[in-house]
């Protein structure tokens, strides 16, 4: 019964995290980059939205500005990686650290800003879950349609191929570095957009919010794709699956709280979900696959995507 009462709230928050997971999907699944800057950019989205709202800017406009702020953060990570040659994972960590200072500055040195629905007109808030769900669904639908249109354009296709096979992309005249920057900008823009929604839903922006967001995003992706890929492996279905994964994640989260797990352990739980989803396919391949019978024609290994130029 308690669980049922918590259901609308879990769905609303799950949708917002699902939207964030779409951002992570773009970097992790499409570009093949584990981008840790999202932990910072989701908080940037929250801070930007909250500060703008307290300054009297319309809530919907603050969401758009949050998107742009996140996009800039993503570009910084992208340029660290492509123009300065920093490994992508480290580039993300560096941006994340930079964003902590940036976010503090945005909040004006405070660690928390309240934007209560009683004082401000918000796009969504936790006081009205049905409306919050509706608003989140509308934003998510707009994002998915936008991404669907974009990723099937001539330019969008090369973004997909950049992550799928950089060698092939370069051979076909694709500027792989530029595409990574664009992709990370879109990814972090969406993450920050989700952050803006989250701040309004919770009624506050907190400097410590967003830690481990990448892990939640990955969990949502793995949960979502484990189902959606079985239905139909196409782009839009995958994105919807990822949002669904976000909702399922939050339902599990709420359920575990109800079971009496100390909230201290929630981050560990998120991490363990990701560990399980990453480990199971590996262990299956490693220990549970029988050796194939000898083949007459040699076929090269498919394990490495890149590879050194052979001299």
């Amino acid at each position: 019964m308690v669980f049922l009462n918590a259901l609308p709230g879990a769905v609303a928050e799950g949708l917002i995290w699902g939207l964030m997971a779409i951002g992570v999907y773009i970097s992790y699944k499409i570009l093949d980059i584990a981008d840790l800057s999202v932990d910072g950019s989701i908080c940037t989205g929250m801070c930007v939205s909250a500060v703008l709202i307290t300054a009297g800017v319309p809530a919907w406009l603050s969401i758009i500005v949050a998107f742009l702020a996140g996009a800039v953060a993503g570009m910084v990570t992208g340029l660290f990686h492509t123009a300065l040659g920093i490994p992508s994972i480290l580039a993300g960590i560096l941006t994340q650290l930079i964003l902590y200072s940036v976010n503090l500055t945005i909040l004006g040195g405070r660690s928390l800003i309240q934007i209560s629905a009683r004082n401000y007109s918000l796009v969504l808030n936790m006081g009205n879950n049905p409306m919050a769900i509706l608003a989140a669904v509308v934003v998510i639908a707009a994002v998915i349609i936008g991404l669907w249109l974009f990723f099937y354009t001539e330019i969008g296709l090369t973004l997909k191929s950049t992550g799928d096979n950089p060698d092939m992309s370069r051979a076909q005249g694709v500027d792989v570095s530029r595409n990574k920057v664009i992709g990370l900008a879109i990814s972090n823009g969406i993450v920050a957009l989700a952050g803006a929604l989250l701040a309004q839903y919770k009624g506050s922006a907190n400097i410590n919010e967003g830690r481990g967001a990448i892990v939640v995003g990955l969990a949502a992706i793995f949960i979502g794709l484990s189902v959606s890929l079985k239905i139909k492996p196409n782009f839009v279905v995958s994105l919807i699956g990822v949002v669904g994964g976000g909702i399922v994640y939050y339902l599990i989260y709420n359920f575990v709280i109800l079971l009496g797990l100390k909230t201290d352990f929630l981050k560990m739980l998120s991490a363990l979900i990701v560990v399980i989803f990453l480990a199971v396919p590996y262990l299956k391949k490693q220990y549970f696959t029988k050796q194939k019978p000898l083949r007459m024609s040699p076929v090269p290994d498919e394990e490495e995507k890149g590879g050194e130029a052979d001299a």
Partner: protein
Amino acid sequence: MLKITGLEKTFNPGTVNAKTALSGLDLVLEDGDFVTVIGGNGAGKSTLLNAIAGVWKPDYGTIELDGVDVTNMPEHKRAAFLGRVFQDPMKGTAPDMEIAENLAIASKRGIRRRFVWGVKRSDREEYKKLLATLELGLEDRLSTKVGLLSGGQRQAVTLLMATLNRPKLLLLDEHTAALDPKTAAKVLHITNKIVSENKLTTLMITHNMHDAIEYGNRLIMMHEGRVVVDVRGEEKKKLTIDMLLKLFEASSGSRFGDDKAILSK
């Protein structure tokens, strides 16, 4: 067409692993030349193709394509002039994308890409016709993910992608080496058809001397980072494997024995 002067490249310079892959290579290709390239392991064949493609910058020397100095042009810009097929069938196509999407990306090689629909209905019709010419039954599988195709099919699609937008120069880096003999023969047959129908200037590395003699109008043999044998026209038509071996021994000053295992008859 292609003019290479004094090309040099050493990998890992200054270390114990230093390896000079190209040592002052000169090569001029005429328009429409179909050149087969042979040579032992480490002769610099792949290095030559990678240098032309711009995978890295050479230490010394220049590369000119149709009068344009491309020595310092980045790989993705140079791609406008080049069609490439790699030895590894996994390297030339995006496995998680549809055949049609792969072809669509290739169709815009060297052309400014825009925010317009990537695969239009009219494109699909065109791709269907092109795929039909491969005679592999791929024309009905436009929406299939390339990763589901066999190595031979992927190489054939890569060939199509490399030539969809007529390249000034086609670079084939032992593109049949990873295939079984029957598939290799088929892919080679398709290659020859595409090259001769479009009169493409082509550099094809092969480890198979028989193929090197059979295909193309010109044959070069590399040794220690240089071209040591260059046979063309009528002279090439009369070439036999034994003659080739003698030519190699005479020009490189070394016995062929070491390389016999690598160059198969």
